[in-house]
């Protein structure tokens, strides 16, 4: 199959087309959108095209991977990049280019598929929205930013798209802030600002780290950065220099902000103020994935010390967010905290030294989390924008398709075997065991990470099944009005911003407005697609002529490994091959043990969690209340998300504002005073100067003028303004001249 072979002549054009189609659609939509009857067709079709191209390229990549080829396409080297701020001398040489490696291939496919599904879903979900067209335009540009980020071959352009994504998340989370009828209006404004400002902290860190690396390595290109890092470390005697740890941690700061790691996770739960499709995009494919993707790109730059910090932060996030997920009643909030928790898994995996596992989890998570969010959206849509799980229940019968989709994705996220999440989570835990069991590489951080992840995995299974049981099993509680508005306000800790709206302004489904119903096809079809991918995304064996031959080789592991990601040279430097028969045997033994332990652990924790949820929220519904009573003040602490928002408000925002006021005072009193003083001094000097000017300079000039006038008044006696008089003079003069010439 020739078309599944890489063709260097045309591939870069196809790859360029993938991000350019959405941005072109954006431009058309913004400038000419009013000419289109419907606001969605253009961009959805564009996204579909983009997805098809990305999938074609993905198929090529997969084909190459199964054939055992290592591929790494860099436009700068292969096709010639786009020179930007290029100088012939070394210095700031910026060449924008495309970087297509296995990770990029996977991400490109995931992003386009999820984005297309979200587009399709939005045509149903956002129906009737007053800024429908703008919504589609923004979501396309959002996708463009992520695609550009994935394809960037250097840190600077990655940063540019990173910032563009920040802007788009701001616009999309705040989507409802322009909708006067929306109950989310105030909250959306607030949440969008919060997301923007919070991620900005991380972005500044990333910028600082980026510039530190550029200062030392004089490049932004990933491949050059990696080899420069290898050379530097080798020159330093195998030890990472201290500045690399610092710079790596700064870069990781970007990930903390973007991927909602502790303590900058606070923006993500609030991001659900935006429309549900936006949440799906942010949680699955774009925003938070960007942070993890950044880690994947910069992994070779991270020193062991930095990686330990990363492990600790990731594990803490995973565990901490999972506990919050236990107590939340809001359907989307549970999913939001589960995202934070899963992101913690990914970050921990990178910290534990298994980039493959982290990226794998990111990919599978993208599918099932997108499906979960869209299902939640479907549920919310079906329940007329009700989000409280206490007001749901029994929806299994009423929304069968949504239920099935959500259920299989819950199985996936809970880590049930044969579902994609199991494979990726299992790989992360296995990475942890490898580090813990290996005496050479043991560290406390790794042990902490392993334990935290195991607990978090159990909690994940628990709260996810809690969600399923609350939402889909039991009796429908939507008509129990006493639950409405109760307990919701403290749910988000800032009830003032939440006004749960009861509007059915686009209730075109007919019938009883309060009876949940299945969503229309353009909502369920993306669900089914994503559910399919959520189930099987972990162990695809497509692109191979013989499916059975490769059934035990998950595509991701085949495609993405450290050697395919960073090249053999760099990966060899990162984890040197063991030498000697003994060492090799030891390694095999270690792997075997780790594998068994990991499978055992993940199975145990998953089943434990599922069983707990079944017990507490299906079988014995009285237990949760008793538990709450038993733990005492612990429950409000967790339910209020450990008061992090309050802490941030008190210890970060208020001091910042105080500082600002102080600076303002300095500016007004001191700086302005100096400036005004200089101005007064100038005025005084100018007065003196003006006096001099008026007396002497003007006197001179006027004197010349008067002199000229005096002469002019004499000359004007013959300047009568009569043309004919001049003519007579001329004639008389010429006659005299001629007479003189002749007579002389």
């Amino acid at each position, binding site marked *: 199959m020739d078309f599944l072979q890489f063709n260097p002549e045309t591939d870069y054009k196809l790859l360029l087309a993938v991000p350019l189609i959405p941005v072109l659609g954006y431009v058309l939509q913004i400038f000419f959108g009013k000419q289109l009857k419907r606001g969605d067709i253009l961009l959805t079709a564009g996204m579909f095209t983009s997805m098809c191209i990305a999938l074609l390229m993905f198929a090529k990549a997969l084909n190459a991977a199964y054939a055992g080829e290592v591929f790494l396409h860099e436009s700068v080297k292969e096709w010639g990049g786009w020179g930007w701020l290029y100088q012939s001398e070394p210095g700031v040489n910026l060449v924008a280019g495309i970087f297509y490696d296995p990770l990029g291939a996977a991400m490109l496919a995931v992003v386009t598929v999820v984005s297309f599904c979200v587009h399709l879903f939005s045509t149903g979900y956002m129906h009737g929205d007053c800024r429908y067209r703008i919504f589609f335009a923004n979501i396309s540009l959002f996708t463009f930013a992520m695609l550009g980020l994935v394809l960037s071959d250097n840190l600077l352009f990655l940063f540019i798209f990173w910032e563009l994504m920040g802007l788009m998340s701001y616009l999309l989370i705040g989507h409802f802030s322009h909708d006067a009828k929306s109950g989310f209006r105030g909250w959306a404004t607030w949440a969008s600002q919060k997301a923007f400002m919070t991620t900005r902290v991380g972005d500044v860190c990333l910028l600082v780290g980026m510039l530190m690396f550029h200062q030392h390595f004089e490049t932004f290109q990933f491949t050059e950065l990696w080899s420069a890092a290898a050379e530097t470390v080798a020159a330093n005697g195998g030890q990472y220099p201290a500045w690399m740890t610092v710079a790596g941690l700064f870069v990781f700061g970007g990930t903390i902000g973007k991927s909602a790691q502790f303590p900058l996770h606070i923006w993500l739960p609030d991001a659900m103020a935006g429309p549900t499709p936006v949440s799906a995009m942010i949680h699955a494919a774009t925003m938070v994935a960007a942070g993890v993707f950044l880690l994947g790109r910069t992994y070779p730059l991270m020193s062991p010390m930095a990686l330990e910090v990363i492990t600790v932060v990731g594990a803490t996030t995973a565990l901490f967010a999972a506990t919050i997920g236990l107590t939340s009643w809001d359907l989307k909030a549970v999913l939001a905290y589960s995202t934070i928790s899963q992101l913690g898994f990914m970050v921990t995996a990178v910290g534990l030294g298994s980039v493959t596992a982290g990226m794998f989890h990111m990919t599978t998570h993208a599918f099932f989390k997108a499906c979960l969010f869209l299902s939640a959206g479907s549920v919310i849509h079906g329940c007329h924008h009700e989000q409280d799980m206490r007001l749901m229940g029994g929806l299994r019968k009423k929304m069968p398709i949504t239920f099935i989709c959500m259920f299989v994705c819950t199985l996936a996220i809970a880590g049930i075997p044969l579902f994609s999440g199991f494979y990726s989570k299992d790989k992360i835990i296995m990475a942890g065991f490898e580090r813990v069991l290996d005496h050479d590489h043991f560290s406390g951080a790794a042990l902490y990470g392993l334990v935290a992840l195991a607990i978090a995995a159990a909690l994940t299974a628990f709260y996810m099944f809690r969600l399923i049981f609350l939402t889909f099993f039991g009796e429908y509680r939507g008509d129990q009005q006493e639950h409405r508005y109760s307990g919701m306000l403290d749910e988000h800790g800032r009830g003032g911003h939440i006004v749960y709206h009861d509007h059915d302004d686009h209730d075109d489904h007919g019938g009883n407005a309060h009876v949940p119903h299945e969503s229309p096809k353009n909502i369920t079809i993306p669900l089914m697609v994503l559910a399919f991918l959520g189930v099987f995304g972990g162990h695809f064996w497509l692109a191979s002529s013989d499916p059975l031959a490769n059934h035990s080789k998950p595509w991701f592991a085949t495609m993405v490994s450290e050697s395919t990601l960073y090249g053999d040279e760099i990966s060899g430097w990162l984890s040197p091959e063991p030498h000697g028969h003994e060492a090799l045997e030891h390694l095999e033994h270690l792997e075997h043990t780790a594998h068994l332990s990991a499978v055992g652990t993940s199975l145990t924790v998953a089943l434990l969690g599922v069983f707990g949820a079944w017990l507490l929220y299906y079988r014995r519904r009285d237990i949760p209340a008793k538990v709450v009573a038993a733990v005492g003040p612990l429950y409000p602490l967790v339910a209020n998300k450990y008061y992090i928002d309050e802490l941030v408000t008190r210890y970060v925002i208020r001091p910042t504002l105080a500082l600002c006021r102080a600076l303002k005072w300095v500016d007004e009193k001191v700086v302005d005073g100096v400036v005004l003083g200089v101005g007064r001094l100038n005025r005084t000097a100018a007065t003196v100067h003006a006096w001099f000017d008026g007396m002497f300079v003007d006197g001179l000039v006027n004197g010349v003028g008067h002199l000229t006038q005096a002469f002019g008044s004499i000359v004007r006696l013959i300047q009568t303004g009569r043309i004919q008089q001049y003519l007579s003079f001329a*004639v008389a003069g010429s*006659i005299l001249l*001629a*007479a003189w010439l*002749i007579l002389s």
Partner: protein
Amino acid sequence: MEPASRVFYTLVTLASLLALGWGAFSAGAPGVSFALFAILTLGGGLMCIWERSVVRSAFSLMATFLGVAGLFLLLGADFLAMAQVLIYVGGILALILFGVMLSPPDLNERSLPRVLGGLAFAGGAAIWLGLRISASVTWATAEELPPMTSHAEEIGVGFLSPEQYVVPFELAAVLLTVALVAAVYIARRRSIDLFPEEDA
């Protein structure tokens, strides 16, 4: 007709008859032709000065132009003669008539002493100087002149050959273009008015 005009035109007629007679006497048929064209030229000019109506003056100018064209013919410059008729009569005179008709017809005064004095003084001086110049160099006499031929082709070649007049020719083209553009620019109506109070 006012008495002064009668006297004036009688004098002009007498002078014309004298000139005709002198021409016929001195040179026969060519002399008559010359005298006719000279009378046309000068008579038109005199009438132009004399007539009170500017329109009549303009029309009398046509006689001058035609007379000059005739003189050109006698001098063997046929191309020039026709260009004279085409440009002066068909173009410039039409433009002047246009100007006459676009301007007010209220200026009919003429200063007789100034006309006559100017004519007498300047005429005496100029004729004397002209004769003096022509006498100061030895010129070919009318009988020695080469036969007259048409010079249109010669003039055309002269215009285009780089050794001769191509630069002045191109300059003249540029001048004409500039003049026409300038004329259009100047003549277009614009909003400025030096005496706004008089508009009321």
